[in-house]
C-alpha cells in the first residue's frame, strides 16, 4: 500500500523508510492476531479494510480536510471535546501509543520509567513515522497524569500542543475551571477556521458524535447480552472501538450499525464465536491503544472470551451521551457538554468511587465470570487505584486477576500462565455451581 501514498508521506515530512518498516511489522501482527480467528462476522471486513488503510485511504481523506483548511487534531485522551472539532468541519482522531517500535527513540528524551503509552506516542513524533501526528494542526494534551503533562512541554518543541487543564476533583470550583478550558479550546478551533461556530454547527457536531457513541453502546450490549451466545470476539470488538478513534464518525456509525444488525441475526440463529461455557472476562483499567492487542489475544487463545472493556478505549468512552433536549444557545450546549465530560470516571480523579460502583454493576449485568485488572507499567493512576478496586471486588466475591505489563513480548508466556490459571479456577467454580 505504501507506494501509492508516498507523495503524501513526503508532503508530511515523514521518514519513509522507517515508516515502511513499521507498516510491515504492523500488518504481520494484524494478520497473525486477527485474521487467524475463526467464525468472524461478515461485516467486520470493513474494519479490517480500514485498519489496512489506516495510513493510506484514511490519510488521503484527511489530506482533503487539510487542503480546505479544516482543523485536524490528534489526541491521547477522551477528555477532548471532539464535538467542537467536528462542528468546525474538521477531524479529531486518537493517536497510536501502543507500539514497542517507537519506544527506543522516545527513551533518548524521556525517562524509561514512565508509561509505554506516552513513550510510544512521543517516539512516533521523534521518528516522523505517524502520518496522523504529522498532519495535525496541533496535538491535544491534558493534565490527567504527571507523565503526560510534563511530556507535553517537551513535545511542544516538536509539534504544537494544546494543553487543557483537567481538574482532579469534581466540585464546583473544578467545574468552573473546566468550563473555561472548553471555551478556550473552542476559541482555538475557531481561530483555525477563522470564524465563530454557530449554534447549528455545534449542535450538528454533538449529534454526529452522539450517534457514534450510540453505535458503540449497541455493540457493547450485543456482545454481552446473552449468557451463552457471544456473537463477536473481544479482539474484534476492541478493533472496532479502536477504529472509532480514527474513522470518519458518520461512516463509522453506519458501519457499526450494519455490524450490529448482523450480530443480532447471529444471536437469533445461535451463532457464537465460543462454546457456551467459555469463561466471560471483563477487562478493566488502562486504555489499550492500537496495536496493543496482547491481553485480548492471550485471553482468547487460552480459552476465555472478553466481553467488555472498562477502559477509555472501551466503555468509558461511549457510556454517556450529551443531552440536547431543550438546548437553545451555544452556552446551553457547552453546559451540557460539561455535564457529560464530568461523568468520565478516569483514575485521575480523587475520589473515584463511581468507577468502582460502575464496574460492579456492569459485572452483574453482563453476567461476567471474572475480571482482569489491566494496567500498563508505570501508569500510576490506574495502578494505584487497583488496590481500592480489587479490595471491593474481593468483598463482592468477584474473581479478579491483576496484570501489569508493557508492550514488549517478553512476558507473554508469564501472562499466559496467569490467565490460564485464572480461567481454570473460574471453570472449576462454574462446574461446581452447575453440579449443585
Amino acid at each position, binding site marked *: 500500500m505504501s507506494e501509492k501514498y508516498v507523495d503524501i508521506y513526503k508532503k508530511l515530512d515523514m521518514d519513509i523508510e522507517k515508516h515502511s518498516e513499521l507498516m510491515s511489522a504492523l500488518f504481520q501482527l494484524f494478520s497473525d492476531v486477527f485474521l487467524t480467528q475463526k467464525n468472524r462476522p461478515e461485516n467486520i471486513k470493513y474494519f479490517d479494510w480500514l485498519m489496512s488503510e489506516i495510513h493510506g485511504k484514511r490519510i488521503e481523506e484527511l489530506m482533503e480536510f487539510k487542503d480546505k483548511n479544516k482543523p485536524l487534531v490528534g489526541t491521547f485522551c477522551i477528555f477532548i471535546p471532539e464535538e467542537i472539532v467536528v462542528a468546525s468541519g474538521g477531524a479529531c482522531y486518537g493517536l497510536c501509543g501502543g507500539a514497542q517500535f517507537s519506544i527506543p527513540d522516545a527513551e533518548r528524551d524521556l525517562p524509561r520509567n514512565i508509561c509505554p503509552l506516552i513513550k510510544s506516542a512521543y517516539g512516533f513524533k521523534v521518528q516522523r513515522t505517524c502520518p496522523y501526528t504529522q498532519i495535525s494542526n496541533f496535538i491535544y494534551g491534558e493534565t490527567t497524569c504527571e507523565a503526560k503533562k510534563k511530556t507535553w512541554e517537551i513535545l511542544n518543541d516538536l509539534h504544537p500542543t494544546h494543553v487543557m487543564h483537567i481538574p482532579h476533583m469534581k466540585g464546583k470550583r473544578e467545574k468552573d475551571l473546566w468550563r473555561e478550558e472548553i471555551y478556550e479550546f473552542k476559541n482555538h478551533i475557531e481561530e483555525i477556521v477563522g470564524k465563530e461556530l454557530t449554534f447549528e454547527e455545534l449542535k450538528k457536531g454533538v449529534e454526529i458524535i452522539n450517534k457514534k457513541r450510540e453505535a458503540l453502546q449497541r455493540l457493547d450490549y450485543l456482545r454481552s447480552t446473552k449468557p451463552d451466545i457471544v456473537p463477536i470476539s473481544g479482539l474484534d470488538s476492541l478493533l472496532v472501538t479502536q477504529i472509532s478513534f480514527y474513522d470518519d464518525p458518520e461512516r463509522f456509525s453506519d458501519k457499526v450499525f450494519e455490524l450490529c444488525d448482523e450480530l443480532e441475526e447471529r444471536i437469533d440463529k445461535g451463532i457464537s464465536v465460543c462454546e457456551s461455557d467459555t469463561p466471560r472476562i471483563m477487562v478493566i483499567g488502562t486504555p489499550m491503544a492500537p496495536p496493543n492487542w496482547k491481553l485480548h489475544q492471550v485471553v482468547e487463545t487460552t480459552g476465555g472470551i472478553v466481553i467488555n472493556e472498562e477502559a477509555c478505549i472501551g466503555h468509558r468512552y461511549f457510556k454517556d451521551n450529551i443531552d440536547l433536549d431543550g438546548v437553545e444557545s451555544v452556552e446551553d450546549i457547552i453546559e451540557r457538554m460539561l455535564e457529560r465530560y464530568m461523568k468520565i470516571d478516569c483514575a485521575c480523579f480523587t475520589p473515584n468511587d463511581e468507577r468502582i460502583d460502575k464496574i460492579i454493576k456492569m459485572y452483574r449485568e453482563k453476567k461476567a465470570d471474572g475480571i482482569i485488572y489491566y494496567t500498563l507499567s508505570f501508569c500510576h493512576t490506574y495502578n494505584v487505584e487497583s488496590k481500592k478496586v480489587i479490595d471491593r471486588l474481593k468483598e463482592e466475591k468477584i474473581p479478579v486477576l491483576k496484570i501489569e505489563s508493557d508492550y514488549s513480548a517478553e512476558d507473554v508466556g508469564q501472562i499466559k500462565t*496467569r490467565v490460564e490459571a485464572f480461567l*481454570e*479456577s473460574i471453570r472449576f467454580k462454574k462446574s461446581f455451581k452447575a453440579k449443585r
Partner: protein
Amino acid sequence: MFYGIDVGSTYTKIAGFNEEREIIDLHVFPTQVNPDEDVKKFLKDKNVEVIVSTGYGRYMIKDSFNCPVISEIKAHAKGAYHFFPDVKTVIDLGGQDSKVIKVDEDGNFSDFKMNDKCAAGTGKFLEIVASRLGVSLNEFASLGENADKKIKITSMCAVFAESEVISLLAKKESVENIVYGVVDSIADRLVSMVKSLRPEERIVFSGGGALNSLLVKLLGEKLGYKVYVPQYPQFLGAIGAAVSAIELVGDFV
C-alpha cells in the same frame, strides 16, 4: 503409565506414575530448542497412557502429543497436595518466575500471585549472583550458612544487585557473607509476596529454590511457620501434571 511433563525455561522435567499411584519414573534434562523431540525420545519405549503437560513450553508438547495442558499454578497445587493433603500454601521458586498459591481442601488452588516480568526474587537472580561470585548453585547454601555477618543487599533489581555484589567484593566482604545477603534478600522478596496472600499452615516450598537449605530456613523464620519441602521439589510441577493425568482417566471409569 501416567506422565506429567513440565517444560521449564531451563529444565524439562518428566514424572511418571503407575496404576497404583506410585512415582516410578523421574527424569530431567536441560530445555533445548526442541524439548518435544527430547521428550519423544525419552517416552519412545514406555507404556504411555495419558500425558498432561505444564510449564513454559506446555503448548509445544500439546502440539506434538495432542495432550491436555494445565497451568503451572494448578500443577503445583496438585503436586503439593499429593505429598501433603493438608497443604494450604505453596511457594514455588523457579528459574524465571516465583509464585505463591493458596490451596483448598480438595487440592485445587483458590488464589495465587506470580511475579511480573522481572528477575528479582527468581532463580535467575541466584544464578546471576552465583556466576558473579564464581561459585556453583549447589555450593550456595553451605557457603551462606557459614556467614559471620548478616549483611543486606538493598537492590531488588537483579542488574543492580549484581553491581552491588561487585562493590561488596571490592570492599573485601567475604563470599560467605555476600551469599547470605543475597539469599536473605530473596527470602524477603518471597515473604512479602506470600504475606499478601495471607499464608496458612501447612506451607510447602518447591522448585529449584527449595534445594537451598538456607533459603528454606530463612523463609521459615521470616514467616513464623515451619516450611516443608516435598521429596523432589524441582519435580513438583511435573508430578502435579501426572496427578492430573490420572484424574483425567478417573473421570471416565
